[in-house]
């Protein structure tokens, strides 16, 4: 998965979880939970969806890596 | 049906039998006793008679309503008494007052219109049969509370007395009123204050359905009035000339400062108390007996006897009256009804702005 694909995937999922927000306008380094007002359950949904679509395991310890668009894309594209 | 009772003696003699013809006054002694005057009296009585007969017809036809008390048989009283009154005098009357009103000179059109409840009626339609009023002729009603008019008459007379005016207030009431407290209060007060009231008691022997003797301990009503200290005497109320003569005598005395006077006018109503009633309280024979003394027939007979009434005069008068009556009915029927929006008029006087 390229970083661009990863970024797109994250955006798609975020659109579903927070339909009133446009992730395209988000700066890459903005904190997702703060910017999109995601609570812990939203975030859990996000992580779950991400894990399912990307096919990779995401541990709790990985959560900090999903804090921003940029770091999340890097995390998914990495490995 | 219970057996009819004849009034017990001695009242029976006095009350239920017409006065004997022999007691009738002699014509040539009467004041203003011209043939023309007597023809006028006859005409006035006939006018009342025809008016009342028409009322029966109109009432039966549903054109006029309410309580309607007819004067048929008693015409001589109203017509006779009125001969003694001047236009300045006042009349306080009862609910059987069509005759009083007509004799007083209230136009027949206004009285008939009142029967029809039209604004052209003498009370503007508000009063109806029992409450005829006319300021023009000082006719103070039309009082349908038995005895209720007496205090009014006393008060009107008190005014004349206090204002120093030489006027008479003639107060009509029936024999039933003699049983009321107001009768005694007023005769007492009028005498006490020497007020110019002419009390005219129309004794037709029945207070509605109660015979005089069944309601009064003393059936000689003049005697009772006299007990208050006022001149009082009984008159044959079926004889208009006798009534006139007595009324003139009394009215002159009242006018001259003699205080109240009392006339018991013995008369009879030929019809029911109010339009129709079962008439179970009096004997048909008694009614027939009184009818033979019909005041109109009586006067006409005497005038014919005296050669004062030509063969066709009465018929001519009658035809004349019928025309007048027809005209009055036509006018009454065409008279305006008061708009309902005026319903609460005449409760209080119009206020000055």
């Amino acid at each position, binding site marked *: 998965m390229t970083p661009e694909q990863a970024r797109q995937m994250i955006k798609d999922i975020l659109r579903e979880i927070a339909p*009133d927000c446009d992730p395209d306008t988000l700066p890459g380094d903005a904190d997702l*939970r703060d910017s999109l007002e995601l609570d*812990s*359950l939203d975030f859990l*949904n996000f992580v779950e969806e991400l*894990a399912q679509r990307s096919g990779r395991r*995401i541990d*709790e310890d990985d959560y900090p890596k999903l804090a921003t668009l940029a770091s999340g894309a890097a995390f998914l594209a990495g490995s | 049906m219970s057996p009819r009772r004849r009034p017990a003696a001695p009242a029976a003699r006095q009350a239920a039998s017409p006065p004997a013809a022999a007691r009738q006054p002699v014509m040539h002694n009467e004041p203003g006793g011209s043939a023309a005057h007597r023809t006028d009296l006859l005409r006035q009585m006939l006018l009342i008679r025809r008016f009342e007969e028409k009322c029966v017809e109109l009432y039966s036809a549903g054109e006029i309503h309410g309580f309607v008390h007819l004067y048929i048989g008693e015409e001589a009283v109203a017509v006779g008494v009125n001969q003694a009154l001047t236009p300045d005098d006042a009349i306080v009357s009862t609910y059987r007052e069509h005759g009083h009103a007509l004799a007083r000179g209230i136009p027949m059109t206004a009285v008939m219109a009142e029967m029809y409840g039209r604004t052209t009626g003498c009370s503007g339609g508000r009063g109806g049969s029992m409450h005829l009023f006319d300021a023009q002729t000082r006719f103070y009603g039309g009082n349908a509370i038995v005895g209720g008019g007496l205090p009014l008459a006393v008060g009107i007379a008190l005014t004349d007395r206090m204002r120093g005016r030489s006027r008479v207030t003639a107060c009509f009431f029936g024999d039933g009123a003699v049983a009321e407290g107001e009768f005694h209060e007023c005769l007492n007060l009028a005498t006490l204050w020497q007020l110019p009231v002419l009390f005219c008691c129309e004794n037709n022997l029945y207070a509605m359905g109660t015979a005089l003797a069944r309601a009064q301990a003393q059936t000689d009503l003049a005697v009772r009035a006299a007990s208050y200290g006022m001149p009082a005497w009984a008159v044959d109320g079926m004889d208009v000339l006798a009534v006139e003569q007595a009324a003139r005598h009394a009215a002159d005395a009242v006018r001259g400062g003699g205080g109240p006077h009392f006339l018991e006018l013995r008369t009879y109503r030929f019809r029911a108390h109010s339009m129709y009633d079962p008439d179970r309280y009096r004997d048909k024979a008694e009614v027939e007996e009184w009818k033979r003394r019909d005041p109109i027939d009586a006067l006409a007979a005497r005038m014919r006897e005296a050669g004062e009434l030509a063969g066709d005069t009465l018929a001519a008068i009658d035809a004349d009256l019928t025309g007048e009556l027809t005209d009055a009915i036509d006018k009454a029927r065409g008279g305006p009804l008061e708009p309902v929006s005026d319903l609460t008029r005449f409760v209080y006087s119009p206020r000055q702005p």
Partner: protein
Amino acid sequence: MPALGADMEQGTLVEWLVKPGDQIHKGDIIAVVDTDKSAIEVESFHTGTVEALITPVGETVPVGTVLATITETEAEPARPGAAEAGRPGAVEAGRPGAVEAGVPAAMGAPAAAAAGPAAMGAGPAAVEAGRPAAAGAPKGKRAPGKRAPGRARPGRTPAPAGPAAPVHSTPLVRHEAGQLGVDLAAVHGTGRGGTITRADVEYAAASRRVRATPLARRLAAELGVDLGTVTGTGTGGAVREADVRRAAAAGAPAAQQPPAQPPAAAAAAGQAPHAGEAGRPATAGRAGTAGRAESMRQAIARLMARSKREIPHYYVTNTVDMGTAMSWLRERNRRLEVSQRLVPAALLLRATALAARQVPELNGYWGEDHFVPGPAVHLGVAISLRGGGLITPAIHHADDLAPGELMAKLRDLVNRARAGRLRSSEMTDATITVTNLGDQGVESVTGVIYPPQVALVGFGKIVERPWAVNGLLGIRPVVVTTLAADHRATDGYTGGRFLTAIAQLLQRPEEL
């Protein structure tokens, strides 16, 4: 049309999930109704065959309107304690105002759908649930020509009562109804097989009309205050001028709701994803329309104003060491798939549910003048909606659920709440409510009780703080727990016991 909240006067039928001839069971979802608050699933309280669908899709009808008729195949035994569950509601609905909203008395009180509001709980709605929802879920045969008269005031919405003939009641009950002037045909029975009990009759008699002075009524209309939410201080609890003015000043609530959104419009503004997931066309109205947000705001305003007006709150606070709990959680989650993992909130809810069982004085309702214990621990969870507003559905029997189950329920509830797909019963029976503002980063929240509940538990963010244990200072994750409680029902001591219980439970997460 079930009353899904005190302020609900009408609802729009969005979707039928059954058709005539379908066999249905008690608890089955049979329709979706759009209120000014949310699309809500209507469940059947009866087992039987759908006879006829009476209200067409898209139609907005007053509360109390018969939506469908169901021929009961057999009367199911009433849920034990159902009558008890109804009690507080009865009391609540008996308050002045229950009827004022124009809904039949049985629909009574508070706002379920509308109620979501309060920063807290699904309380009052819950209370009503027992009764009103029943009215909404059509049952029984509708006797031809015999339409049960609604108890709405004449001249208002024509509101035929849900339940129709035949009326089951005992002679004693019929006698009492006669004495009290109650029309049995308009009474919802809570007894076995829908039998009308004495309590139902008394409830109906008590809830017929708000006692209010003429001036109070006029002012309420002018100021847009719903008399049903106003506490009367006059003779016999009559609402008077001053009461209405106080309510108005406190921001109480329009008596008239804006008309419900037409389904299509609502759908256009709707949130797609979860609707799709639910496998149903996304026609159901969803939260987020301006009108709904506004009316939700009003409903929240009304309810919270009432709470602060009526309930003498007391507050206790405790800071809990979450070190053990967070370690346990991390360890547990490490072994699990994302979908199985717990969030800390699940532990907090679990601890709260167990504490509520231990301290039952805080789990229930305030009736006319006394506390009525809840039939079980139904934990109301305040869920904020995207785009504003709040909804507080209940997790039923939360004290019987293991943390995993609780977590699953919570996720389901949150998803459905945000999708506008809550069930009527979830809207109406919380016995105690939790608000957790930790996700928003605040350290503590001191809440407003959701009437007629008597307690509201608040959790702040779990933060690391210097913490002294056994004379040694360390860094520990801690959470500030607060309790807002009704002083009429309990005293601070009870509140203290409750918070201590939560703290102790959180020290042994493995036992949760």
